[in-house]
């Protein structure tokens, strides 16, 4: 199952709720302002690193670039995908939950 998060973890509670309710083994895609959760050294870094042991975490490349986040600043283990990869993730999951 694919979960998407499009909110900054510093502004809204979407990441918290997703991590509380997503089944281990699920895929999580960070996009729009949600990509800020993927960056090293932030106040949510531990939470995201913990999540990486339960989930596969992706971040949307075009949204990282728009926000000036270079890939080397990402937490190890987070995979970058484009819109085509987003489509593949959705197609390959049985269902999608957007934590709007």
């Amino acid at each position, binding site marked *: 199952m694919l979960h998407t998060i499009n909110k900054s973890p510093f502004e809204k509670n979407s990441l918290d*709720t997703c991590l509380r*309710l997503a*089944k281990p083994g699920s895929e999580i895609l960070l996009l729009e302002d949600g990509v800020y959760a993927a960056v090293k050294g932030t106040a949510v870094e531990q939470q995201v690193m913990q999540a990486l042991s339960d989930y596969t975490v992706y971040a949307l490349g075009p949204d990282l670039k728009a926000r000036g986040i270079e890939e080397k600043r990402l937490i190890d283990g987070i995979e970058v995908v484009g819109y085509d990869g987003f489509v593949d993730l959705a197609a390959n999951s049985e*269902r999608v*939950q*957007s934590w*709007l």
Partner: protein
Amino acid sequence: MGNGAKKFMYVNRRAPYGTIYALEGLEVVLIGAAFDQDVCMAFVDDGVYQLQKGQDTAESNMKNFSPTYRALGDYEVTKLYVEKESLEQRGMSEDDLMELTYEDEDDDYQEKPSIRIVNRGELTDLMEQQDVILNY
């Protein structure tokens, strides 16, 4: 419910009135009821506030849509899952929520409660059983 019925879950995570998502989300559920699918609703985070008793919008001049939740049973929307952790975080218990019921046609039309308090693990399992999840 037909054999080809899909399982729809409407996940409500917003408080009523501050934004319109709760009201317009409810409109989807009511329309959707005519399509003979397997429908349930989940109330998570601030979504639990939608079910708070005693809403009165007279002084704020908005439309009070809370009575509509009482109609859900008549539309055969009978599974309203409320996350226990979300209630607790907000200092609420089931007593704070409206009493919502439905008549069980498979059990001599007995009146039964629609609200079911579930914990996070149960909600996770329920989500995994769905075909379509709509989040407001």
